[in-house]
């Protein structure tokens, strides 16, 4: 195995000025499947590609609700994400309890960044192996932040993290000028197009592997308001499985594709079909999205 005399603890710089443990933590983020975030003047959305570790496994959730006005997409170690998102929930609730105020989005992101930073400086600790895209809305409007294990938090108009996220970044960079004034539907379509670009050839977005989170006023055309009071109130909501159907169809329509998706995809989801059946069916026809590249050890990853 590759040895590096400066990587065994995170408090020692290499002569090149690197903290190798931090760099490795950033690699862990890149191993996770892609997550994309973008925002307009009115909305912020997250789009993620879910993986399953095998045909018999469920798809790992990548979107976590923190509060009515904040949610995150994760890439990297799921268990680290659980610790950090739990901390964020505590911070969010603390603000509501003590001040009766929804915590400003930038401040809750900074709070986990500060936490992550101490992990890069104290002996005997390890950096978190997970990166977040955080969306939220507060009195200054909708926001999108990236949190990374190096302890940084930056705000973006659009951003992507995780495996093959560079392709998505390329899409976002060429199109981001139109995001500011985009409608929710347009914003999601851009997001799905960017997410699509992270897929390997012959893979496609499906009900099973795509999940979308939205913050901002709802759009009854693409969202099922009868099944989400969060959507009615403009709060953080997640659409996945059958719930993401309308969004995917609208996207395919916008690109002039067959609304039902690529040929071999199953027909319309049957209402009585269990989520698991749908998933394993999906999994069998396109097993690889979750399958790790040969030789990678991803037991802890989403």
């Amino acid at each position, binding site marked *: 195995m590759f040895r590096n005399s400066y990587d065994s603890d995170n408090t020692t710089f290499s002569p090149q000025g690197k903290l190798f443990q931090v760099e490795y933590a950033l690699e862990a983020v890149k191993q996770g499947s892609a997550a994309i975030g973008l925002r307009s003047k009115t909305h912020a959305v997250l789009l993620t590609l879910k993986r399953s570790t095998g045909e018999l496994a469920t798809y790992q959730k990548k979107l976590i609700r923190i509060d009515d006005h904040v949610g995150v997409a994760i890439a990297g170690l799921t268990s680290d994400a659980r610790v950090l998102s739990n901390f964020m929930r505590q911070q969010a609730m603390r603000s509501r*309890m*003590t*001040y*009766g*105020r929804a915590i*400003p989005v*930038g*401040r809750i992101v900074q709070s986990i960044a500060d936490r992550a930073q101490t992990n890069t400086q104290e002996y005997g600790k390890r950096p978190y192996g997970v990166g977040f895209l955080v969306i939220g809305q*507060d*009195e*200054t409007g909708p926001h999108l932040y990236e949190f990374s294990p190096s302890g940084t938090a930056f705000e973006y108009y659009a951003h992507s993290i995780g495996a093959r996220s560079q392709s998505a970044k390329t899409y976002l960079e060429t199109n981001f000028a139109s995001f500011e004034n985009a409608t929710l539907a347009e914003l999601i379509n851009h997001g799905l197009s960017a997410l699509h670009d992270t897929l390997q050839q012959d893979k496609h977005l499906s009900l099973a592997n795509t999940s979308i989170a939205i913050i901002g006023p709802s759009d009854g055309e693409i969202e099922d308001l009868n099944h989400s009071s969060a959507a009615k109130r403009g709060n953080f909501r997640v659409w996945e499985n059958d719930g993401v159907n309308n969004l995917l169809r609208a996207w395919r329509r916008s690109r002039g594709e067959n609304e039902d998706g690529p040929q071999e995809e199953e027909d319309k989801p049957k209402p009585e079909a269990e989520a698991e059946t749908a998933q394993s069916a999906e999994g069998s026809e396109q097993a690889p999205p979750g399958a790790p590249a040969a030789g990678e050890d991803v037991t802890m990853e989403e």
Partner: protein
Amino acid sequence: MWKQPAPANSSFNDYNTFPLPQTQRGQSSHAHGPVGHTQQPLVTGTSVLGLKFDKGVMIAADNLASYGSLARFRDIQRLHPLGKHTLLGVAGDMSDFQWLKKELDALLREEDALALSDSHPSLSPKNIYELLSNLFYARRSKMNPVWNAVLVGGWDKVKEESFLAYVDLLGTTYTAPTLATGFGAHLAQPLLREAFEAKAGINGDGPLLTQEEAEKVLDDSMKVLFYRDARSINKYQIATITAEGVSISDSKSSDTYWKFAEGLRGYGAQTQ
């Protein structure tokens, strides 16, 4: 109103003429000696009044801090602004009030510092009130109360409406268009309600008092309090909080009339 404890043989001091500091030692121990809890207020302020009007809210309090029945400090300001659109009017223990000022000022400075990087609006009157309520309730639950009754007045910039609420040493909270602490709750509150309801109606959906009308009602109420509350002084301030911000008046006095007293037996020159 802020009752001082009676000494052990309570035939003395039925009129609260002097406060009796009683440090209770050995109740609980700590590395730095016994923990000091406020068992009683010492230097106290009396009533605070609050009233909503058409463009905001007014809060009034006199300038006296009493030491028992002694009118000890006669130029104390009991109205304290917090940020641009919030103001506290504080009755009760003045040292707890000073501590409270220090804590809240520090908190607001911290908020301002954070706002430099994210431009997020500072704490609203409601936010400050919520914090204060939690603080008072937490301290009462530790049997170490912050010995005050506080009116929080403010202007909510987002909702574009005035804010007025009460919190005290028990953590009791409430809001109403007219509020008063201590003796004011008995002597002034009826006058405030009467004036408020005369225009707004009992459901409060009619027109509110104008600034001039509101100030007149407060002036009248402060006069009544000066006449009947032995722990008050004829020198008070009125704070006005509107969309434009907080303004605190200079100290002023009521015109009082004592001629009637000369005819009273036992008051004037007569000896019999």
